[in-house]
């Protein structure tokens, strides 16, 4: 059978029986209500900021909406796709489909595409609020396009993993739980692993401090009069080495979206949305800590905090560092494709080996 015809049949079948239920519309309704509340609150808190339209909160609202879609997508997709194959096997309808001319590849891929389409419904439902974000201003079209595409790809990865697990694991309950564990590992587990590993791995840093002494201070300015520089004093302390582990965060879907979105900085180089704030923060972790620093507040007889001068802005940090989103997304897509391939191999008939405790029909 023609590949697309078989795929289309399975997708239609899935969407008709699995998705089109009351629960699904309730979920979408709850999502719309939540995003509406967030939009309203952001509107009230931020419309006073904007005096000239240049610092509107549209970017913040938009990035929040996208993260909402990702959050709900990660919560709903495993439930919708996590029993796609083994649930049908339990119901006795998988084998009756497999004896038709539709191939196993078409069955598994069709279920994956259907689950993906279902999770994209959240993205579609969020569109009216994206328009509100544009009205609020300060939102880059490039940011919108890229984050939409990357979010869609991430939802696809989640759908693929859910469907694949439902074919690999025999019991529906188990595969749904496992899909949630994968989501949790990517969203929260990467943060925990990063934090723990970075804290455990420490280096010894040495700081040299040069102070000054002055007998008198100018009453008017508070500046010291005739300061005398002291001998440099050094002390050592442990610093965590997060720079070794920043790659772990690249596997986090929230970081992938943030890192992929271009722009998002104002003329002072400070972030104008959650994506650029997060990605400049994450990218700054690539810089190793300074292990041999000098804090010279005496400054050769002219005391001041000049050692603090010339700190890079978040935008400069962001642009100087290595982008990691395509590595993270690439790994996600590879894992998803591999899982689907395994799922197809596992479901193919005539079956040679059956997982223990399962039956073909």
């Amino acid at each position, binding site marked *: *059978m023609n590949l697309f015809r078989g795929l289309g049949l399975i997708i239609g079948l899935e969407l008709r029986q699995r998705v089109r239920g009351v629960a699904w519309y309730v979920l979408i309704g709850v999502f719309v209500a939540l995003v509406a509340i967030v939009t309203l609150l952001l509107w009230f808190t931020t419309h006073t900021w904007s005096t000239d339209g240049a610092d509107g909160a549209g970017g913040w609202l938009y990035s929040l909406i996208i993260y909402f879609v990702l959050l709900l997508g990660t919560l709903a997709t495993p439930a919708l796709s996590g029993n796609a194959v083994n649930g049908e096997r339990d119901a006795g309808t998988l084998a009756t489909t497999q*004896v038709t001319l539709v191939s196993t590849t078409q069955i598994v891929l069709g279920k994956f595409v259907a689950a993906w389409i279902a999770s994209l419904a959240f993205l579609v439902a969020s569109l009216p609020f994206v328009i509100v974000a544009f009205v609020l201003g300060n939102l880059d079209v490039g940011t919108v396009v890229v984050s939409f595409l990357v979010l869609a790809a991430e939802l696809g990865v989640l759908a693929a993993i859910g469907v694949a697990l439902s074919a690999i694991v025999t019991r529906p309950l188990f595969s749904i739980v496992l899909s949630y564990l994968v989501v949790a590992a990517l969203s929260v587990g990467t943060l925990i692993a990063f934090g723990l590993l970075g804290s455990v791995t420490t280096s010894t840093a040495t700081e040299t401090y040069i102070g000054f002494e002055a007998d008198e201070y100018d009453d008017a300015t508070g500046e010291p009069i005739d300061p005398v520089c002291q001998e440099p004093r050094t002390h050592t302390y442990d610093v965590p080495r997060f720079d070794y582990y920043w790659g772990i965060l690249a596997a986090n879907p929230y970081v992938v979206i943030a890192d992929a979105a271009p722009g998002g900085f104002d003329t002072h180089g400070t972030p104008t949305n959650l994506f650029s704030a997060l990605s400049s923060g994450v990218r700054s972790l690539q810089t190793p800590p300074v292990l041999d620093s000098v804090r010279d507040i005496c400054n050769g007889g002219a005391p001041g905090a000049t050692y603090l001068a010339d700190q890079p802005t978040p935008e400069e940090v962001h642009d100087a560092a290595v982008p990691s989103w395509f590595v993270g997304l690439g790994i996600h897509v590879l894992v998803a494709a591999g899982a689907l391939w395994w799922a197809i191999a596992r479901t193919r008939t005539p079956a040679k080996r059956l997982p223990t405790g399962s039956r073909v*029909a």
Partner: protein
Amino acid sequence: MTESMTDSPPADGVVVDGVARSFGSVHAVRQASFTARSGSITGLVGPNGAGKTTLLLMLATLLRPDAGSIRIAGIDPVADPVAVRALIGWMPDTLGTWSSLSPRTALTTIGRMYNLDVQAARRRASELLATVGLTHLADRPARVLSRGQKQRLSLARALVHSPRVLLLDEPASGLDPAARTELRALLRRIADDGATILISSHELAELEVISDAAVYMSAGLTASSDALTHAATTTRQWRIRALGDAPLATALQQIGVAPENIATDNRGTLVSVTGDADAAQLLSALVAAGTAVTSFAPAVGDFEHTFLDLTKNSAADQHPEPGPEGAAQ
């Protein structure tokens, strides 16, 4: 292994030769060999856990045999499952229906999965719904169907693409007597058109009415012809009814039937007889003795007798299968 393949196999039939399949340590099918001819209905007879469902799953291209060969209309289901799928209609023993879809939608979808275009699939669905008597429920969700109605829907699904080979796993269970009669007539029509029909069941009387031939299966083995001959010549009970009980008892005594071979139940007198020749002799003796015989027939059907005899022998020959319910798993 290919001996039986050499004497020209029926073009449209099913030929199974030395097929075995095990699941881990459970040997569901040990050695199955039989031929089902086109244009006829073959019954697959055996107790629960005999391996009937596993055998049908292998014929339906869902399971790969560990050993042996299968030919469906001359095609090997392992080598070319797609070609076999286009030919076979399979009705499983588990009643799977897409519960939120109506029978009409389900059948139309299945039709399209067999490459029918939308119009043809819709036509075929309406036709089959009428054939199996589900037209009045055609547009309700399938979850409202009763067990018997789901059974009919399952049969309709197996027939969507007018298959040349029909594999039916317990098709009559859950059907009322009228529906069974209709099913028999329908299957006979399909067989008369030249299709090969293989029906598995443990309801022997039912199967005996419809089948042209039988394959006996027990503990994963199909019965050999020796075993079948043996079964045909073992002692079985015949039920005799005559006008008046007393004259019959007297007549039996006069003919010289040993009292231990005579029993009675609420439907007549039972006499143990070995083989058909003895039965014929007994009948003519009774008639000659002037008994007004109104009914003279085997107390159990041929299938049941053969089946019971084979089960008895195989139980004596070998250890019973552990966990017979796991055989289809």
